[in-house]
Every structure is written in C-alpha cells, then in structure tokens.
C-alpha cells in the first residue's frame, strides 16, 4: 500500500494490516509524524507533537502483535484535542492562560484510549476553551482547512478535524458543547460523533459548559467511530454525571440494515438559513438512505428557533463559573508585577483570555446576576426542557432525525469574526442536540464547490448504535467519506 493510502486508510483497514504484519505501528507512526512535520507549518492543526513517546508506544504495540495480541485500536496513530489533560504533556486548551500548563493526570478518555493501545502522536489546536466555530479564537493562531487553506476548518475541534482530513492521524478526539465535533467534521469532510451526555466521562476534560460538554470520536468512517466510542465510554466513578451503563460493542450495531428505519426531517432544519447547494447535497444523501429502505417523515421541532438564545445563556453562565479558577493564583497565566489582588485578577484574566472567551464570561456573569437570573438563566433552563420535550415527542414517531450539520460549507477567514451572532449561527442545527443531551453525528455528504458538506443524524438518548448504523449504510453506498483534500507534496 502506498504512503498516501496508509495516511488515508481507516483504522479498521490498518488493523487488518497490522494484524497481518503487513505494516508495523512503528512504520505508521513514523509516516504520520512525517506528515505532521510536512504540513503542520501551513495548517497549524497540531500544537504539540510527542514523537519519542509515540515511537515507544508504537514499538510496544508491535510487540503485542508479534505475541499474537493486539485489538482493533492497538498501534493506531491518534491525536487528542488539546482540551484533554495529558499527564506530563502540556495541555493548553488553545489559551494563553494555559500556555505552559502541564497536568499531573490523564483525562479518563486519554487513559481509556491508551489502555486500548492507540499511539498518541500529540495534541491538536482548537478554539480557545472550545469557544468558537472557526478555530479563529485560538491563542496559537487559526487552523487552516486542508481543503482550502483560505477557509476555516470549523470549530472548536477544528485542529482535530483538519489534522484528520490532512492525514496527520487515523483517529482524533474532539469535544462538542454546541456542535464542536459535528460542525468541523462537516467542514472538513470526516465522520464525527457527539455521544449522549453521560456516555463518555468528562473527568480530565477542561470544562467549558459542564451540562453540555461531551467528548466523542472523529474518524474516517462510522465504523472507526464505533470502535473508538466503545473504548471511550463507560461509567466513571470520578464523573458523577457519567451514565451507569455498560460500554456496548457499538460496531455490532453496524449491520448496514436500515430497512424500515424511520428518519424524521424537521421542517425547521430545511429553511432559509440553509445554503441551497448544501440542501441539495443533504437531499441526495437522504435519497440514498431512502433507497436502502429508510422511510423519510417530515417532523416538527416547534421550539428549534429558541435553541441559540437558550444555549447562549446557559453555556456562558456555566463557563463564567468554570473559568473563574483561572485567577493567576495557583496555576496558569499570571500578569507581571501585580499591584494588588484586584490588579492580579484583572490583568491576569484580561491578558490570559482572548476576546471571545471574555465576551462569554461577561455574558454568563450578566445572565446569572441578581435581578437577571430569572429573566435569563432560569428562563433558559425552562426553554431547555421544552426543547428536550420537542425531541422526545418527535422520537415517538421516528428512530433518527436527519438534517444538515452546518448551514453552509467552510467559509473564509474573517468572514464572520466581526459578527459574533453570525458566527453563532454556524451551530444552529447542532446546539439543540446538546441542550437535549442526545447523540448526534456528522457524516460526509459530498462536496459543494470542492468543499465538504455534512449530514447530521440525531438519535435517541444512548442509541448511538442506530445513527452509526445509518451513517455506515451511507458509507457503504457512497464514496463521500473517502474524499480527501489534495495535500500536494503528501508524505514528503
């Protein structure tokens, strides 16, 4: 197999080769590290590379295979979003505040994937504290979309999505608070899954909005996502909100059989906000599913239009408290020569946080303030319940809800940066899923003007298997997920 083929192969394909000793993890790891070396200068997708540790882990994986051991993720090169704490390895969360922060612990997700045998190559760039939809808020500079470096990769897991699309890793992790896995997956043409809230432990993931944050897999195929999710999920006594459910073998759900699957199409998701060309691609994807036996049913999610306002009260409110610990006292950025305590707080936080993070802290603080709590935070909590109820109602008649992952394809740098609300609209189709705590994925649905489009599939709580199977069916019937950007001097 050529280097290019190895760089764009799925984990399942690489596993067959590793098992057959057709390639070693050491060779793969070296190849992917070279790819990062060759392209990260232009893409800025990776913040930290752990080459020595990766090579050591790869050799350990190869020893497992030579002993006849090794499971599906053993020896597969992976990059983590830099929001996951990694013991002894700098974890920045895309912020100057944590530029030099080295955790003394691994996030549960990191530990679980390590236990599953992956080879961690390094850490991916991201929007600062996961606040952004374009990766333009990173303190370490924007990530470029490998399909067109004039365009954004989406966010906040934009570094992860871009790195995967550029062949810098076979698997990447992301987190999704309002669309941060699905929207960049859509804009970079990969498969990304936000699991049900509680499916994956949040311990060791730097918090943005605790009631919405959820980590998930991003990969080339639904099948790889299934393998990764199985390794990532399960109850964690260290996270009180993790679900007390066994981690199922999600790949067992990938029968490819979707005969009779009822797919709901919310009329609110196919409105004027949606780029007509994207809409056309979504329709094509839906007809493939229909042809495979699914039934398409128009449904109503009557309170969808409240999702953005609701989200932009709750998420900033929680963030305003979650980010209060960055005060310059114990760790993280501290301003030079503070005059007094107030000065220490003010300047450490003003200099350590970027503009979007400060904006959200202010919005959240305001929404929780005396006299505004009932009008904003309390009201938003009520609407959140109504939005959840919409989904519950809808799922009495359908098994899956489908729509676009984002209103358009990747846009150019600076296009929405000046107008926060237009940027927030990027997540118009994904936010409600977080508010309801449901699983959602984005799977490639072809290209518009050479840029990827993503189909979003939303499932019932803890029913990731059904949406993964529907995405798997689509990936059996189309080559959209196989499309890769032209990397020029690939594998230099």
């Amino acid at each position, binding site marked *: 197999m050529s280097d290019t083929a190895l760089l764009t192969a799925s984990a399942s394909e690489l596993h067959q080769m590793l098992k057959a000793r057709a390639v070693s993890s050491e060779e793969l790891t070296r190849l992917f590290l070279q790819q990062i070396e060759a392209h990260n200068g232009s893409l800025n997708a990776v913040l930290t590379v752990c080459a020595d540790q990766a090579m050591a882990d790869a050799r350990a994986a190869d020893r497992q295979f030579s002993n006849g051991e090794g499971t599906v993720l053993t020896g597969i090169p992976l990059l983590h979003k830099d929001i996951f*704490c990694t013991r002894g390895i700098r*974890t920045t*969360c895309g912020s100057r505040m*944590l530029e030099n*922060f080295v*955790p*003394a*612990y691994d*996030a549960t997700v990191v530990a679980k994937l390590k236990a599953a045998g992956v080879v961690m190559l390094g850490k991916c760039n991201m929007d600062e504290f996961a606040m952004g939809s374009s990766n333009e808020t990173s303190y370490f500079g924007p990530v470029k979309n490998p399909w067109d470096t004039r365009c954004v990769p989406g966010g906040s897991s934009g570094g992860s999505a871009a790195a995967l699309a550029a062949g810098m890793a076979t698997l990447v992790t992301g987190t999704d608070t309002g669309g941060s896995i699905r929207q960049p997956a859509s804009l970079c043409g990969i498969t990304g899954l936000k699991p049900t809230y509680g499916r994956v432990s*949040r*311990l*060791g*993931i*730097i*918090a943005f*909005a*605790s*009631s919405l944050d959820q980590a998930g897999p991003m990969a080339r195929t639904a099948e790889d996502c299934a393998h990764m999710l199985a390794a990532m999920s399960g109850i964690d*006594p*260290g*996270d*009180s*909100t993790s679900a007390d459910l066994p981690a199922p073998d999600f790949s067992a759900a990938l029968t490819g059989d979707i005969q009779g699957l009822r797919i709901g199409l919310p009329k609110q998701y196919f409105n004027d906000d949606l780029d007509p060309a994207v809409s056309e691609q979504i329709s094509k994807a839906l007809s493939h599913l229909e042809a495979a036996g699914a039934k398409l049913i128009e449904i109503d999610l009557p309170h969808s239009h409240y999702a953005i306002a609701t989200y932009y009260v709750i998420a900033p*409110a*929680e963030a*305003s*408290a979650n*980010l*209060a*610990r960055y*005060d310059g*006292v*114990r*760790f993280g950025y501290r301003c030079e020569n503070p005059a007094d*305590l107030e000065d220490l*707080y003010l300047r450490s936080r003003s200099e350590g946080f970027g503009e979007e993070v400060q904006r959200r802290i202010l919005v959240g*603080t305001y929404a*929780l*303030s*005396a006299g505004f*709590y009932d009008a904003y*935070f309390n009201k938003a909590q009520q609407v959140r319940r109504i939005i959840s109820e919409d989904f519950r109602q809808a799922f009495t008649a359908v098994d899956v809800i489908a729509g676009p992952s984002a209103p358009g394809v990747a846009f150019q740098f600076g296009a929405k940066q000046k107008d926060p609300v237009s940027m927030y609209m990027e997540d118009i189709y994904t936010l409600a899923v977080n508010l309801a705590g449901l699983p959602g994925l984005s799977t490639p649905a072809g290209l518009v003007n050479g840029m990827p489009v993503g189909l979003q599939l939303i499932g019932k709580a803890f029913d990731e298997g059904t949406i993964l199977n529907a995405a798997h069916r689509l990936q059996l019937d189309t080559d959209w997920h196989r499309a890769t950007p032209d990397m020029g001097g690939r594998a230099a």
Partner: protein
Amino acid sequence: MSWEMVMGLEVHLQLATRSKIFSGSATQFGASPNVQADAVDLGMPGMLPVLNEEAVRYAVMFGLGIGARIGERSVFDRKNYFYPDLPKGYQVSQFFAPIVCEGTFEVPLEGGSLFPVRITRAHLEEDAGKSVHDIFAHETGIDLNRAGTPLLEIVTEPDFRSAEQAVAYLKALHSLVTYLGISDGNMAEGSMRCDINISLRPAGSDELGTRTEIKNVNSFRFVERAIYSEYERQADILDAGGSITQETRLYDAERNQTRSMRSKEVANDYRYFPEPDLLPIVIDAAYIDHVRSALPELPGAKRERFVRDYGLTEYDAALLVPNHALATYFEAVATTSRAPKAAANWILGDLSGALNRSELTIESCPISPERLAGLILRIEDGTLSSKLAKQVFDALWEGEGEADEIIAQRGLQQVSDTGALEALVDEVIAQNPDQVAQYRAADEAKQKKLSGFFVGQIMKASKGQANPQRLNELLLKKLQGQS
C-alpha cells in the same frame, strides 16, 4: 428607651468525615500546609467533584436529630466569588434546595424548661482554604488543607431574645452533634463557628430593626460577650437617634467590641446557580428509616432516662448529659457501683472539681470509671468512712492503684468489728471515770452532749476508723451500764 434584642444564628459545623466532601483528601486538623489538598481541592482544570456519601448521612442524622423535614431532592449550587483561598472561584453549597428543611429544636434552659428554636434550614457545603498573612513578609500564604472540608450550615429563625438563650442553643447544638458523632464540635479548631444576626427594636414592637451580622465567633463565652457588646453599641446609636447600618462585623475578643468588616451594600452578588457537575441528592423514606434506626440515644432522651432509671434529680441529669463523655462516664460508674446517686455526687463534686483544677476534660480523667466505682462500693458497704473516702479519692487521682489496694495499704478500713470496738470503748470508759459519773447523773439532753466527748476520744484512739454508727450503739449501751 428600652430595647429588645432579636437574634438569629447561623452555625457552620464541620462534619467529622474522614475525607473531604468532594475529594478523597484527608480532613485532619493541623497538618502541614497543602499536604491535604489534591487536584480536586486545588481546582485544577478538568477535575470534578464526587459527593462523599458520609457527609449526606451526617446531614440526615442531624435533620432527624432535631426532628426536621429532610429534603427529598436537594441540589448543590455554585456560589461565585473571587478569593485567593477559594480555588475554583466558586463554593459548592446548597442555596435553592437544602438537604435539611424546617424543624424545631427543643433547647433545655437552666431550671429544666425547654425553649423551642425554629430551624430554618441546614445545608451542605464545602469549606474554603485559609489565607495566612503572618508568615511571609510581603506575601500572603494560601493553605488549602481546609478547602473542601464538609460543612453543615445550620440557620435559625430570629427566635432569640437574650444572650443566655443563644448560648443555651449553641450548647444544646454542640451536645446534639457530639452525641450524633457527626462533628467533634471543637470550637477552638473551628469545627463549630457561629454567625450572629442581631437587631434591636423598642420593647413590645413586632417589627424587626436593621440587623448586623457578627461573623465567625468561636466560643460560647465570646458569643455571650459579642452579643452584649453589640447590643450596647446598637442601643447607644438608637438612643442617640441614629440608625443602624446593615453590615458584617467582627468580634474582637481582646477589646471586647465588634467592628465593621464590610458593608452589605458592596457585598458580592454570588450568582448562585445549580452545580452541573453533581447530581441532585435524592433521599427516599427507606434511607431515612435506615438512618433513623441507627441513631444513638440523644440528649433529651438520656436526661429523661437518667431521672427515671437512676433516680437522679433533673438538675443533676441536666449537668451530666450535655457532655456525652461525661454521661458515658457516669453510666459506667453508676452501673458498676450500683449507687447512681453517689456516682452523680462524686462526679459532679470532687471529680469535676479536680478536673477543673487540673484543666483536664473527662476524656483525659486520670481515674477510670471502674476505679471510682470501686471507691463508691467501699463506702456503700461500710468499709470506708466518707471522711476517709476523700483520702482514697486523692490517692486514686494520683494513680496509686485500685481503691481496695489503697485502703489496705493505708489501713483505712473502718473498724466495725464488735470485739475490737468494744475494747476501744471499754478502754476509754475506764480512763475517764469522772466523765462517766457525770454522764450517768445527767438528764437526757445533757447526756447527748456528753456522749460527744466519748465519741471523740474513741475516734482519736481508732485513728478515725471506727464505724461511727456501730460505735454509737456500743457506747450508749456501756454508758448506760448495760454490761
């Protein structure tokens, strides 16, 4: 004008769990700075709280102990404010839905009556760390050992009208929580801290005046003094036609006065909202029954039982019961000696006196209950006169062994043997023929007086060991010439 004071109390009670409320760190007092603070306590990125179920059980025990309603579904909230010893920038507390809801706590007053105090609520929360200002020259040290220690904040209605009532409540509360074993109640180490909300109003008025809050008073005596001094301060202002500023004040024990800490007008807006990292605490009837069935005997029930079963006075029972260790000591002495009244007298008399003089507590008493009971047994069976018993008590205090050993070694046993006593009586009668003649000639009233002379002489001859009752019988017979 005559002013009536109106007070409500808030007590922060440190729960005696081994580990912190949301982390596995130890809670022991007095460790080196920051050795009992893990990544959770430090508020490190990505760390999450996990609720200590023991703290929940203790809170429910408290609620049942005062007969309060237990919240079926209580919720943790974040209380947001910046302070260097508050690592996360918020304190996890319960604001909207506390674990212990309204109840009434019957406080025993001196004289045996009960004073009902309405409890508004009690909620669980984590303690903050400590800022240390006096170690480093130009810097403040932060010790996070205490950060995350479980607290139960107990809030009353404004039911107190005097410092005595307030102190009685605090003492009863202290007694209750130590009986329950949910706190060591050590005020000096900050295990029980009291905030006093106090306002004045014209006697007879129904309206509440503007209140001040005196923070963190840490002894019963200081509570009493702080109330008096704040009462005087407010009364002086009101008498002069002034008005009270609503504010937080600190009690300065050295100067015996309160001083302003910060004004409520500029106080923080805490922006409470439900803590998304923790699930609500759901408590069902089965759990409550389970906790209730494991509750120990509480002070009220014990007082009643001591009066009923041991025949103690209400007064003695009220002195013995509040201190759990003292009550336990008493019961051990009472059951071993089978003389509860004598046990109470010894404990509340000589033993308490000796403990006070040596500044010891009952927990470190040098006389074991078994040894004190050994002493009482010998008094009860007539071996030891009550006069010589004091000597034996002193020897017990000095650790000279069991009462029986001391009596034997010092030859302190009473002479009750008729033969030995008879010899003594005969000897004294023989030596004092004049007095015998006087006695025999006197009338009954005079005789009584004169017999004292003989008793004194015989006691002297017996070195005080003659059994006075037996001696009297014999002497009377001999003097009256009955053989």
